[in-house]
């Protein structure tokens, strides 16, 4: 009887403890669930739980983007003045850019090549003959009163941009989507105006006036901010890979205007509003989501959506109507009389004799062959050659320079790339993001990281210790992994007699756990291992400890 009671009480004790544990676990789970609910509201319906189907009569957003990408060239589109950022005001302006009478436009070959290369990378049809037009409107930063653009026939039409979204609960499912590109055209940029509200004047700087822009008009194939941001990110990567645009949204090299409307699926498109003044991909997705919600709210209240231009205020996260510009603008498009049509030749054979050999000819064949490796091809190559998962290659290509870092580490270590990728994408990237650094400024060089991982692979240190050492190396860039390990004596304790003693000590001090283990509760083993690790300060080889404990308690 006594024995029975002795047996029963520990059971009760264990049950109570485990019930406490269960309650705590429940709470944590509930917190996780609520956290998930709050974030899923901002995601679009395509991201939702697959079991929940979106109701057919709900309003969905429709988003089309107009992207202006500043062409990376030495000179401007129609004049020979330099293209630069942060130069003294009005110092990079020629007589044509200032629209002095008697000046004529002369087209820059590099800009045409940039537009054609971008069109080829996006699978567009190149128009062999395209025309230039004038778009007239009055504004102080447009000195001529018109902008030379291509409205009748653009350089390229009908393309496609394929982009991927990281979806699913753990953001590890790749969703591939495409957006159609209506056209790519060449146009001039306007100058920069700095508004001085105190003195009620605007200061005009014409350094940017006349710089070549590629306008990419996308069809309204997207339905929420996340998709738009992913598409823009992919476009940035493509343009940077081609070298036609640096794609820096904050510096104004890539400007995105979003056309947002809502409608019920199956019905015709609703009234759209244009959202301007978006300076980063994050703001883009927020602005679009806010605008969609605003329009749904307005329609729900019975108000109509106005066809207007709104500006995004990043501080408040709202879109605000811009100062109304006298209703709908009539741009009075007119063919540019000073520029004959732009002809792009398919191959050297179709160039008329007399022009061959001259610099002033754009030939598609040569450009097609000279296209560099596009991001999608890069990702496929990574997956193929290193056996990575698609979402890993996505992360590698997404961060500037991370792919080169990864390849450098792979070269210097015997570790398998699959195991290595976790270190690079989670640990290293985590540190970089935490300290807000780019890969080029990473204090840990690829060889240092390779050395550390070699130690871990060879079994000299455990993975938790390796993470600790990485932290140390981050703080003090000069030190190498073996030094740190030696100094802080973090090497794995492999000496089995030492470990035996530690295990025995732990087992002796927790007889109840031993008994629970012997009764069949396997989870207690983890607790015991945790205790052993605490004793050895994390230096015990987990595999050895586990086997020792199992041996001792069997």
């Amino acid at each position, binding site marked *: 009887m006594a024995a029975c009671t002795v047996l029963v009480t520990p059971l009760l004790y264990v049950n109570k403890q485990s019930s406490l544990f269960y309650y705590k676990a429940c709470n944590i789970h509930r917190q996780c669930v609520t956290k998930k609910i709050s974030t899923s509201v901002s995601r679009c319906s395509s991201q939702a739980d697959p079991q929940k189907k979106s109701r057919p009569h709900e309003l969905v957003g429709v988003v089309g983007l107009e992207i202006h990408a500043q062409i990376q060239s030495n000179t401007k589109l129609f004049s*020979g003045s330099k293209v630069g950022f942060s130069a003294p005001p009005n110092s990079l302006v020629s007589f044509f850019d200032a629209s002095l009478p008697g000046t004529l436009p002369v087209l820059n070959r590099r800009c045409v090549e940039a537009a054609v290369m971008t069109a080829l990378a996006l699978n567009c049809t190149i128009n062999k003959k395209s025309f230039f037009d004038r778009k007239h409107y009055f504004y102080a930063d447009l000195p001529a009163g018109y902008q030379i653009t291509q409205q009748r026939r653009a350089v390229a039409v009908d393309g496609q941009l394929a982009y991927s979204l990281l979806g699913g609960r753990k953001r590890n499912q790749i969703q591939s989507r495409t957006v159609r590109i209506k056209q790519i055209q060449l146009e001039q940029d306007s100058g920069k105006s700095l508004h001085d509200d105190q003195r009620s004047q*605007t200061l005009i700087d014409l350094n940017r006036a006349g710089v070549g822009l590629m306008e990419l008009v996308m069809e309204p194939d997207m339905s929420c901010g996340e998709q738009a941001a992913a598409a823009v990110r992919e476009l940035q990567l493509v343009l940077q890979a081609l070298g036609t645009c640096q794609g820096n949204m904050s510096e104004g090299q890539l400007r995105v205007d979003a056309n947002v409307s809502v409608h019920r699926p199956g019905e015709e498109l609703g009234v759209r509003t244009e959202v301007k003044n978006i300076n980063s991909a994050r703001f883009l997705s927020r602005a679009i989501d806010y605008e969609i919600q605003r329009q749904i709210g307005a329609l729900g209240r019975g108000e109509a959506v106005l066809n207007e231009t709104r500006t995004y205020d990043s501080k408040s996260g709202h879109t605000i109507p811009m100062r109304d510009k006298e209703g709908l603008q009539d741009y009075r498009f007119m063919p540019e009389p000073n520029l004959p049509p732009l002809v792009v030749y398919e191959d050297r054979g179709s160039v008329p004799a007399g022009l061959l050999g001259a610099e002033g000819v*754009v030939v598609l064949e040569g450009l097609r062959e000279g296209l560099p490796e596009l991001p999608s091809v890069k990702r496929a190559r990574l997956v193929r050659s290193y056996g990575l998962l698609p979402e890993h290659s996505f992360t590698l290509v997404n961060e500037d320079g991370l792919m080169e870092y990864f390849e450098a580490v792979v070269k210097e270590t015997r570790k398998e790339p699959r195991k290595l990728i976790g270190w690079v994408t989670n640990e290293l990237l985590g540190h970089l993001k935490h300290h807000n650094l780019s890969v080029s400024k990473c204090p840990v060089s690829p060889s240092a990281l390779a050395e550390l991982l070699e130690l871990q692979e060879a079994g000299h240190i455990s993975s938790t210790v390796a993470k600790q050492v990485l932290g140390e190396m981050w703080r003090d860039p000069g030190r190498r992994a073996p030094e740190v390990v030696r100094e802080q004596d973090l090497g794995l304790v492999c000496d089995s007699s030492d470990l035996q003693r530690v295990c025995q000590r732990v087992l002796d001090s927790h007889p109840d756990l031993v008994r629970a283990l012997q009764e069949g509760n396997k989870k207690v083993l983890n607790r015991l291992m945790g205790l052993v690790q605490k004793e050895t300060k994390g230096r015990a080889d987990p595999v050895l400890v586990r086997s020792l404990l199992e041996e001792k308690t069997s």
Partner: protein
Amino acid sequence: MLGIHQIYGRRRVQLNIILPLLCRYYYASRTDNMLSTNVKTLRKTRNTPSRPVTVARLYSSNKHNSKVPKVPTWEPLGEDRIPSLPQVSSDLVDKLERLALVDFRTKEGLVCLERAIRFADHLNMVDTTGVEPMDSVLEHGQLFLRGDTVTEGDCAEKLLPLSNTTVEEYFVAPPGNIPLPRREERASMLKHSEF
């Protein structure tokens, strides 16, 4: 600005008187082999001259081979054959003034505009099926593509003095587009101006 137009107007009037006199001085009714043999008798209408005009250079030894046809090859259209155009409404005129910053100040200006449109309507009589519209006389020319080297710029010291006001090397402009005053306000504004 209007003052200059007035000066040109006067000069044009003078030219209008002088030039025909000069032309008549050169009239020569030469009957040598330069005249074409298929001179048709002209219909006497108000748009055609009363006798064939040949212009010759007095002291030139070359036989002048004029490309101008001896008789007009076109025939005038009757007003009724031009398709009629609806009247130009004042809203349209307002919009045109706002877009192009042109001033149709008076009723005569509007009448002039309507007659100009009527004159351009003659083009509707031409059959253009299958013919591509022309952009400019240079449209079959070769578009020259320039290489990407810096050849211009760095002339701020020449450009900035062109503006009345500059602030630290920036051009100065009003804070936004100043909206064109409405028609009634404009009329009163201009009444007090020197034009």
